């Protein structure tokens, strides 16, 4: 048994130690925000955070993540109370099919937690490993800029991000782009 701390809660997982984190998130914890894209760490759809850093969950075995704080898109907020990153993506309508968006949000979140005033060039550089086949990058970059502004404006009040509720398991995975943002906590 392996203990994983996901979105602020400990989970006892019965999985092979070399199981990729992505499979555990989706199959054991029903956190379906992170997506399987390439399985090789080349597309970024599976991106989540570990101790504040963006990682490709498809190529990181769970055994190396014990005692680390894992955060998924479901940890950024809920449908009822989306966090600033999620709100920014909704407001900027920064999704087409939505498959890459949870990964984009998590990599962007890691950047803004490290540098809340990241200039656009840094946002672009940070997001460059994450691919969007729909080609909606312009809106994604704009959404991340907006998220930075929202985070600064909402630095103090509750409900913004944090290790929020990660209550019910995901219901049916992603339906629409924006729904995807909160699907895990749906």
């Amino acid at each position, binding site marked *: 048994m392996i203990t994983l701390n996901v979105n602020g809660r400990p989970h006892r997982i019965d999985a092979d*130690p*070399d199981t990729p984190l992505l499979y555990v998130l989706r199959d054991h914890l029903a956190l379906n925000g992170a997506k399987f894209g390439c*399985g090789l*760490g080349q597309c970024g759809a599976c991106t989540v955070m570990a101790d504040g850093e963006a990682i*490709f969950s498809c190529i*990181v*075995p769970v*055994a*190396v*993540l014990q005692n680390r704080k894992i955060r998924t898109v479901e940890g950024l907020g809920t449908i009822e109370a989306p966090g600033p990153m999620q709100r920014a993506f909704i407001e900027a309508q920064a999704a087409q099919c939505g498959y890459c968006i949870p990964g984009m949000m998590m990599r962007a979140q890691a950047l803004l937690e490290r540098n809340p005033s990241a200039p656009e060039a840094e946002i672009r550089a940070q997001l460059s490993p994450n691919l969007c086949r729909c080609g909606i990058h312009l809106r994604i970059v704009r959404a991340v800029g907006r998220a930075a502004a929202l985070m600064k404006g909402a630095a103090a009040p509750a409900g913004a991000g944090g290790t929020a509720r990660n209550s019910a398991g995901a219901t049916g995975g992603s339906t629409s782009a924006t729904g995807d943002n909160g699907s895990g906590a749906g």
Partner: protein
Amino acid sequence: MPSQGGCHSLLFACLLGAAGLPGCALPELPPAPKPPAGLSIDRMRVANGAQLAAIGNCITCHTSDGGKPYAGGRALKTPFGTVFGSNITPHPDTGIGRWSEAAFARAMREGLDRAGRNLYPAFPYDHFTRLSDEDIGALYAFLMTREPVRAETPADTMLIPRSLIGAWKAMFLERGAFRPDPSQSAQWNRGAYLVRGAAHCSACHTPRNALGAERKREYFAGGEAEGWHAPALDARSPSPVPWTAEALYTYLRTGSADAHAVAAGPMEDVIRNLRPVADDDVRAMASYIASLDARSAEERRKAGERAVTGAKPPPAADSGGAATESDRAIARGAAVYAGACASCHDRGRQAEGGALRLPLASGLTLPTPQNLIRIIRDGIVPPAGEPGPWMPGYAGALGNAQLSDLATYLRSLTGRPAWEDVPGEVHRIARDKQ
């Protein structure tokens, strides 16, 4: 090689604070004349200069992060302090806009700026002195037709005054153009000319002495560059399968050679800059570098066969009966490998996403673990939006202990002696990155 004893004592006398001694004073040369008005530029010369600048990797040191090409400002850390790549655009006040071709040639051959001040040998004039007049003229024509950029080069923080560099030159600068070896082919000679001259490969691939000069007796025995080990290119090459001219050509052209390596670190820039270089020149360099390995073709072929047949798939993790800490580290590292690395590296090179067969990768067989640790941490990532070999970095995923275990495990696959103090090296690199 000239006797160096006397020169050493001269330099040491200077270093010991006797810089005022008359014997140490170096005459300042008069400024070179200003360039004639209406400089005539021949397009063929410019094109040839562009090729030589690409081979020489000039843009890497002479461009700051995010700065304009050739406008200087990149910090080059040396054991003796930091010097900044200078602005070599034709800007009249901050670049080389007022330099005549003669002044430029003198800088390349003698390591002196237009005003006659010594240049630090971080600018590899000990190599550029091999260039022909024609090629120096071509480089001049190329640079003088770049966009002039106003950018002051930051002042260096070198601990050794420029005046002492004259003594360094007396000891280590062997002036003189490249002399072809008539017993070798034209291709070999072209490659030797480029590798020893413009490309200055040995500046990184040869170990340096305490005064920062290349150890001539250990030419191409492996050196250091920006925290990376630059592997030996001669018979001491760590590649389990000996390099061939063909493999070197593929590597220099694409940045990746099966059964050898994928370019990482400073070599990534070198490969990228080589892209526009003519095929014949890349082949010539590959052919010359391959010839540095003095082993016979037969010997090399057999070594290659042994390496390939000996490269078994990594054994399964077995922590039972692991007696020593090193065994336990290897077992833990094997578990990390199985989860994090095997999905690409055990996939077979031809498969989509298939990566190098690790026991054959020279990163595992180098004398130090630094390259392997850096590659695992940071991956191999082309600049944003550019194509190129790709490996994701694991800095965020693996902790220092796991990284160290993984490197220890991978080294154990090579049958070579374990690296010393892998955890220490991991910590040093992690600290550098902060």
